[in-house]
Protein backbone atom coordinates (compact mmCIF):
# COMPACT_ATOMS: atom_id res chain seq x y z
CA UNK A 1 0.00 0.00 0.00
CA UNK A 2 1.48 3.32 -1.02
CA UNK A 3 0.88 6.42 1.04
CA UNK A 4 -1.84 8.68 -0.36
CA UNK A 5 -0.57 11.97 -1.77
CA UNK A 6 -2.31 15.14 -0.63
CA UNK A 7 -1.74 18.33 -2.60
CA UNK A 8 -1.21 20.78 0.23
CA UNK A 9 0.78 23.34 -1.74
CA UNK A 10 -1.51 24.45 -4.55
CA UNK A 11 -2.73 27.54 -2.70
CA UNK A 12 0.78 28.58 -1.67
CA UNK A 13 1.97 28.22 -5.24
CA UNK A 14 -0.91 30.27 -6.59
CA UNK A 15 -0.83 33.07 -4.01
CA UNK A 16 2.91 33.62 -3.43
CA UNK A 17 3.90 37.12 -4.45
CA UNK A 18 0.32 37.95 -5.48
CA UNK A 19 -1.72 37.61 -2.33
CA UNK A 20 -5.10 36.20 -1.44
CA UNK A 21 -7.80 37.26 -2.56
CA UNK A 22 -5.82 39.03 -5.35
CA UNK A 23 -4.81 35.65 -6.85
CA UNK A 24 -8.44 34.94 -7.82
CA UNK A 25 -8.85 38.18 -9.75
CA UNK A 26 -10.72 37.76 -13.04
CA UNK A 27 -12.02 34.26 -12.24
CA UNK A 28 -15.57 35.10 -11.18
CA UNK A 29 -16.94 36.42 -14.47
CA UNK A 30 -19.42 39.26 -14.69
CA UNK A 31 -20.85 40.47 -11.38
CA UNK A 32 -24.62 40.12 -11.01
CA UNK A 33 -25.05 43.23 -8.85
CA UNK A 34 -23.66 46.77 -8.97
CA UNK A 35 -23.05 49.48 -6.39
CA UNK A 36 -26.35 50.90 -5.13
CA UNK A 37 -28.44 47.78 -5.89
CA UNK A 38 -30.99 46.76 -3.28
CA UNK A 39 -30.61 43.12 -2.30
CA UNK A 40 -31.99 40.62 0.18
CA UNK A 41 -29.93 37.95 1.93
CA UNK A 42 -30.98 34.37 1.14
CA UNK A 43 -31.35 31.84 3.91
CA UNK A 44 -29.41 28.94 2.35
CA UNK A 45 -28.72 25.67 4.16
CA UNK A 46 -25.35 25.64 5.94
CA UNK A 47 -24.96 22.32 7.68
CA UNK A 48 -21.16 22.21 7.59
CA UNK A 49 -19.60 25.66 7.36
CA UNK A 50 -20.67 29.20 6.62
CA UNK A 51 -19.51 32.77 7.10
CA UNK A 52 -22.97 34.25 6.51
CA UNK A 53 -24.20 35.50 9.86
CA UNK A 54 -27.66 34.30 10.96
CA UNK A 55 -28.68 37.86 11.80
CA UNK A 56 -28.37 38.92 8.14
CA UNK A 57 -30.60 36.15 6.75
CA UNK A 58 -33.71 37.56 5.09
CA UNK A 59 -32.68 41.17 5.74
CA UNK A 60 -32.57 43.88 3.04
CA UNK A 61 -29.26 45.60 2.26
CA UNK A 62 -27.65 47.97 -0.24
CA UNK A 63 -24.50 47.10 -2.21
CA UNK A 64 -21.79 49.55 -1.10
CA UNK A 65 -18.88 48.10 -3.10
CA UNK A 66 -17.69 45.13 -5.14
CA UNK A 67 -14.68 44.19 -3.06
CA UNK A 68 -12.89 41.21 -4.65
CA UNK A 69 -13.30 37.81 -6.28
CA UNK A 70 -12.69 34.67 -4.28
CA UNK A 71 -14.07 31.19 -3.71
CA UNK A 72 -16.91 31.44 -1.21
CA UNK A 73 -15.84 30.57 2.33
CA UNK A 74 -18.41 27.76 2.27
CA UNK A 75 -16.45 26.12 -0.60
CA UNK A 76 -12.94 27.11 0.39
CA UNK A 77 -13.39 25.47 3.80
CA UNK A 78 -13.27 22.17 1.87
CA UNK A 79 -10.44 23.28 -0.41
CA UNK A 80 -12.84 23.73 -3.31
CA UNK A 81 -11.50 26.72 -5.25
CA UNK A 82 -13.07 25.84 -8.60
CA UNK A 83 -15.77 28.51 -8.82
CA UNK A 84 -14.79 31.91 -7.39
CA UNK A 85 -17.59 34.43 -6.85
CA UNK A 86 -17.85 38.19 -6.55
CA UNK A 87 -17.88 39.50 -3.00
CA UNK A 88 -19.99 42.51 -2.09
CA UNK A 89 -19.74 44.93 0.78
CA UNK A 90 -23.31 45.42 2.03
CA UNK A 91 -24.82 48.08 4.25
CA UNK A 92 -27.79 47.17 6.46
CA UNK A 93 -29.93 49.50 8.53
CA UNK A 94 -29.69 48.35 12.15
CA UNK A 95 -33.47 48.57 12.59
CA UNK A 96 -33.88 46.02 9.76
CA UNK A 97 -31.64 43.58 11.65
CA UNK A 98 -32.88 44.06 15.22
CA UNK A 99 -36.58 44.83 15.68
CA UNK A 100 -35.98 46.38 19.10
CA UNK A 101 -33.24 48.76 17.89
CA UNK A 102 -34.03 52.19 19.42
CA UNK A 103 -35.86 54.57 17.05
CA UNK A 104 -33.74 57.48 18.31
CA UNK A 105 -30.73 55.93 16.52
CA UNK A 106 -32.48 54.92 13.30
CA UNK A 107 -29.60 56.20 11.14
CA UNK A 108 -27.23 53.55 12.58
CA UNK A 109 -25.94 50.97 10.11
CA UNK A 110 -23.93 47.75 9.86
CA UNK A 111 -21.58 46.80 7.04
CA UNK A 112 -20.41 43.28 6.19
CA UNK A 113 -19.28 41.24 3.17
CA UNK A 114 -21.06 38.33 1.48
CA UNK A 115 -20.49 36.37 -1.71
CA UNK A 116 -22.90 36.44 -4.63
CA UNK A 117 -24.66 33.15 -3.81
CA UNK A 118 -26.17 34.73 -0.69
CA UNK A 119 -27.84 37.64 -2.52
CA UNK A 120 -31.07 38.08 -4.43
CA UNK A 121 -32.55 41.26 -5.89
CA UNK A 122 -35.02 43.04 -3.63
Amino acid at each position, binding site marked *: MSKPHYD*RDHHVKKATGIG*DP*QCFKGEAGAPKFKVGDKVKIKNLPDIFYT*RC*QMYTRGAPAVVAALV*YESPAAEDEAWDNTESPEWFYSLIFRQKDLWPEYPAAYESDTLE*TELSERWLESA
Partner: protein
Amino acid sequence: MAKKDGDHRHEPAPMVDEVSEFEILEVAVRELAIEKGLFSAEDHRRWTEYVHTLGPLPAARLVAKAWLDPEFKKLAVEDGVKASLEVGVDWVKDMPTQFGTPSDYCNLRVLEDTPTLKHVVVCTLCSCYPRPILGQSPEWYRTPNYRRRLVRYPRQVLTEFGLILPSDVEVRVEDSNQKSRFIVLPVRPEGTEGWSEDQLTEIVTRDCLIGVAMPTPGVTANVKLPVHPAVNPVPHH
Protein backbone atom coordinates in the same frame (compact mmCIF):
# COMPACT_ATOMS: atom_id res chain seq x y z
CA MET B 1 -5.34 31.06 49.86
CA ALA B 2 -4.74 31.32 53.62
CA LYS B 3 -1.59 29.61 54.90
CA LYS B 4 -1.21 27.78 58.16
CA ASP B 5 1.11 29.26 60.79
CA GLY B 6 4.66 27.96 60.48
CA ASP B 7 4.25 26.98 56.83
CA HIS B 8 7.39 28.38 55.22
CA ARG B 9 7.28 26.55 51.88
CA HIS B 10 7.77 28.95 48.97
CA GLU B 11 5.08 28.28 46.43
CA PRO B 12 5.49 29.82 43.02
CA ALA B 13 2.44 31.68 41.73
CA PRO B 14 0.78 29.97 38.75
CA MET B 15 1.98 31.21 35.36
CA VAL B 16 -1.61 31.91 34.30
CA ASP B 17 -4.85 32.40 36.21
CA GLU B 18 -6.91 30.33 33.84
CA VAL B 19 -6.46 28.01 30.85
CA SER B 20 -9.41 28.02 28.49
CA GLU B 21 -10.69 25.03 26.52
CA PHE B 22 -9.62 26.81 23.31
CA GLU B 23 -6.04 27.02 24.55
CA ILE B 24 -6.07 23.29 25.31
CA LEU B 25 -7.52 22.69 21.82
CA GLU B 26 -4.78 24.85 20.24
CA VAL B 27 -2.04 22.86 21.98
CA ALA B 28 -3.62 19.56 20.91
CA VAL B 29 -3.98 20.59 17.25
CA ARG B 30 -0.49 22.09 17.19
CA GLU B 31 1.10 18.92 18.61
CA LEU B 32 -0.78 16.74 16.13
CA ALA B 33 0.33 18.97 13.24
CA ILE B 34 3.96 18.75 14.38
CA GLU B 35 3.71 14.95 14.72
CA LYS B 36 2.22 14.70 11.23
CA GLY B 37 5.04 16.86 9.84
CA LEU B 38 2.83 19.69 8.54
CA PHE B 39 5.23 22.12 10.20
CA SER B 40 8.01 21.78 12.74
CA ALA B 41 8.22 23.04 16.30
CA GLU B 42 10.93 25.38 15.04
CA ASP B 43 8.57 26.80 12.37
CA HIS B 44 5.97 27.37 15.07
CA ARG B 45 8.43 29.17 17.33
CA ARG B 46 9.62 31.46 14.51
CA TRP B 47 6.04 32.24 13.51
CA THR B 48 4.96 33.03 17.08
CA GLU B 49 7.99 35.24 17.67
CA TYR B 50 7.33 37.04 14.40
CA VAL B 51 3.71 37.89 15.12
CA HIS B 52 4.67 39.21 18.55
CA THR B 53 7.01 41.74 16.96
CA LEU B 54 4.03 43.38 15.24
CA GLY B 55 2.20 46.31 16.80
CA PRO B 56 -0.21 49.17 16.04
CA LEU B 57 2.44 51.81 15.27
CA PRO B 58 2.37 51.50 11.44
CA ALA B 59 -1.41 51.96 11.42
CA ALA B 60 -1.15 54.99 13.73
CA ARG B 61 1.41 56.53 11.38
CA LEU B 62 -0.82 55.78 8.39
CA VAL B 63 -3.63 57.76 10.05
CA ALA B 64 -1.30 60.66 10.94
CA LYS B 65 -0.02 60.77 7.34
CA ALA B 66 -3.60 60.76 6.04
CA TRP B 67 -4.51 63.68 8.32
CA LEU B 68 -1.58 65.71 7.00
CA ASP B 69 -1.73 64.78 3.30
CA PRO B 70 -5.11 64.74 1.48
CA GLU B 71 -3.59 62.85 -1.46
CA PHE B 72 -2.35 60.09 0.85
CA LYS B 73 -5.76 59.98 2.54
CA LYS B 74 -7.37 59.38 -0.86
CA LEU B 75 -4.93 56.55 -1.56
CA ALA B 76 -5.49 55.00 1.90
CA VAL B 77 -9.26 54.91 1.44
CA GLU B 78 -9.00 53.57 -2.13
CA ASP B 79 -6.20 51.03 -1.65
CA GLY B 80 -5.21 50.26 1.94
CA VAL B 81 -2.66 47.64 0.89
CA LYS B 82 -0.78 50.14 -1.31
CA ALA B 83 -0.95 52.87 1.35
CA SER B 84 0.49 50.43 3.92
CA LEU B 85 3.73 50.26 1.92
CA GLU B 86 4.34 53.92 2.89
CA VAL B 87 4.44 52.92 6.56
CA GLY B 88 6.60 49.85 5.99
CA VAL B 89 3.97 47.11 5.86
CA ASP B 90 3.81 44.90 2.77
CA TRP B 91 0.64 42.84 3.13
CA VAL B 92 1.60 40.55 0.26
CA LYS B 93 5.33 39.90 0.62
CA ASP B 94 6.15 40.39 4.31
CA MET B 95 7.54 37.62 6.50
CA PRO B 96 6.87 34.91 7.40
CA THR B 97 4.71 33.46 4.63
CA GLN B 98 5.51 35.83 1.77
CA PHE B 99 2.17 35.09 0.16
CA GLY B 100 -0.11 36.78 2.58
CA THR B 101 -0.25 37.70 6.19
CA PRO B 102 -0.54 35.99 9.54
CA SER B 103 -4.29 36.18 8.97
CA ASP B 104 -3.84 34.84 5.44
CA TYR B 105 -5.52 37.60 3.48
CA CYS B 106 -4.18 40.82 2.06
CA ASN B 107 -7.12 43.14 1.68
CA LEU B 108 -7.02 46.15 3.99
CA ARG B 109 -9.83 48.68 3.95
CA VAL B 110 -9.37 52.00 5.71
CA LEU B 111 -12.75 53.20 7.02
CA GLU B 112 -12.94 56.98 6.97
CA ASP B 113 -14.94 58.59 9.78
CA THR B 114 -16.65 61.94 9.29
CA PRO B 115 -18.19 64.26 11.89
CA THR B 116 -21.52 62.42 11.29
CA LEU B 117 -20.24 58.85 10.74
CA LYS B 118 -18.34 56.69 13.26
CA HIS B 119 -17.01 53.24 12.30
CA VAL B 120 -16.29 50.48 14.78
CA VAL B 121 -14.84 47.07 13.87
CA VAL B 122 -15.76 43.61 15.16
CA CYS B 123 -15.57 40.03 13.90
CA THR B 124 -18.68 38.23 15.11
CA LEU B 125 -17.67 34.87 13.63
CA CYS B 126 -14.17 34.60 15.10
CA SER B 127 -11.68 37.43 15.67
CA CYS B 128 -10.40 38.60 12.25
CA TYR B 129 -8.02 41.49 12.85
CA PRO B 130 -5.55 43.40 10.62
CA ARG B 131 -2.54 41.88 12.38
CA PRO B 132 0.21 42.93 9.92
CA ILE B 133 -0.56 46.58 10.64
CA LEU B 134 -2.10 46.42 14.15
CA GLY B 135 -0.31 43.50 15.83
CA GLN B 136 -2.11 41.02 18.05
CA SER B 137 -5.71 41.80 18.97
CA PRO B 138 -6.53 42.79 22.55
CA GLU B 139 -8.09 40.06 24.67
CA TRP B 140 -11.47 41.83 24.85
CA TYR B 141 -11.72 41.93 21.04
CA ARG B 142 -11.77 38.12 20.98
CA THR B 143 -14.37 37.64 23.71
CA PRO B 144 -17.84 36.37 22.74
CA ASN B 145 -19.20 39.17 24.90
CA TYR B 146 -17.76 41.96 22.69
CA ARG B 147 -18.44 40.05 19.46
CA ARG B 148 -22.09 39.30 19.99
CA ARG B 149 -23.03 42.54 21.76
CA LEU B 150 -21.33 45.10 19.51
CA VAL B 151 -23.45 44.30 16.44
CA ARG B 152 -26.71 44.49 18.36
CA TYR B 153 -26.06 47.08 21.08
CA PRO B 154 -23.23 49.18 19.59
CA ARG B 155 -23.96 52.37 21.50
CA GLN B 156 -24.19 50.60 24.83
CA VAL B 157 -20.87 48.81 24.24
CA LEU B 158 -19.16 52.03 23.11
CA THR B 159 -20.45 53.71 26.27
CA GLU B 160 -18.65 51.02 28.29
CA PHE B 161 -15.45 52.17 26.53
CA GLY B 162 -16.27 55.75 27.53
CA LEU B 163 -17.43 56.81 24.07
CA ILE B 164 -20.87 58.41 24.13
CA LEU B 165 -22.06 59.59 20.72
CA PRO B 166 -25.01 61.92 19.95
CA SER B 167 -27.93 60.56 17.93
CA ASP B 168 -27.06 62.67 14.87
CA VAL B 169 -23.86 60.64 14.47
CA GLU B 170 -24.41 57.43 12.46
CA VAL B 171 -22.68 54.48 14.12
CA ARG B 172 -21.58 51.96 11.49
CA VAL B 173 -20.52 48.56 12.80
CA GLU B 174 -18.11 46.82 10.44
CA ASP B 175 -18.50 43.05 10.85
CA SER B 176 -15.25 41.69 9.45
CA ASN B 177 -16.47 38.27 8.29
CA GLN B 178 -14.61 37.47 5.05
CA LYS B 179 -11.26 38.37 3.45
CA SER B 180 -11.12 42.11 4.17
CA ARG B 181 -9.44 43.52 7.25
CA PHE B 182 -10.28 46.97 8.59
CA ILE B 183 -8.81 49.92 10.42
CA VAL B 184 -10.65 53.13 11.27
CA LEU B 185 -9.39 56.52 10.09
CA PRO B 186 -10.84 58.80 12.78
CA VAL B 187 -11.58 62.51 12.42
CA ARG B 188 -8.55 64.63 13.35
CA PRO B 189 -9.37 66.12 16.75
CA GLU B 190 -9.44 69.81 17.53
CA GLY B 191 -6.42 71.17 19.36
CA THR B 192 -3.90 69.43 17.07
CA GLU B 193 -3.36 72.32 14.64
CA GLY B 194 0.25 72.56 13.54
CA TRP B 195 1.22 69.18 15.05
CA SER B 196 3.94 67.10 13.41
CA GLU B 197 3.42 63.57 12.07
CA ASP B 198 5.17 62.11 15.14
CA GLN B 199 2.97 64.08 17.54
CA LEU B 200 -0.19 62.99 15.72
CA THR B 201 0.94 59.34 15.64
CA GLU B 202 1.17 59.30 19.43
CA ILE B 203 -2.53 60.02 20.00
CA VAL B 204 -3.76 57.41 17.49
CA THR B 205 -4.02 54.48 19.88
CA ARG B 206 -4.93 50.90 19.03
CA ASP B 207 -8.43 51.51 20.41
CA CYS B 208 -8.88 54.50 18.05
CA LEU B 209 -7.92 52.24 15.14
CA ILE B 210 -10.50 49.59 16.14
CA GLY B 211 -13.03 52.39 16.58
CA VAL B 212 -13.93 52.11 20.26
CA ALA B 213 -12.18 55.39 21.14
CA MET B 214 -11.61 58.81 19.59
CA PRO B 215 -8.14 60.35 19.40
CA THR B 216 -7.77 63.07 22.03
CA PRO B 217 -4.83 65.45 22.53
CA GLY B 218 -2.95 64.32 25.62
CA VAL B 219 -4.28 60.74 25.56
CA THR B 220 -1.72 58.21 24.32
CA ALA B 221 -2.94 55.11 26.19
CA ASN B 222 -5.66 52.61 25.41
CA VAL B 223 -8.93 52.55 27.33
CA LYS B 224 -8.52 50.92 30.75
CA LEU B 225 -11.02 48.08 31.16
CA PRO B 226 -11.78 46.28 34.43
CA VAL B 227 -9.91 43.00 35.01
CA HIS B 228 -12.22 40.24 36.21
CA PRO B 229 -11.11 37.25 38.29
CA ALA B 230 -10.72 33.89 36.49
CA VAL B 231 -13.94 31.89 36.13
CA ASN B 232 -12.11 28.54 36.31
CA PRO B 233 -8.91 29.37 38.18
CA VAL B 234 -5.88 27.12 37.82
CA PRO B 235 -5.47 25.47 41.25
CA HIS B 236 -2.47 26.71 43.20
CA HIS B 237 -1.12 23.63 44.99
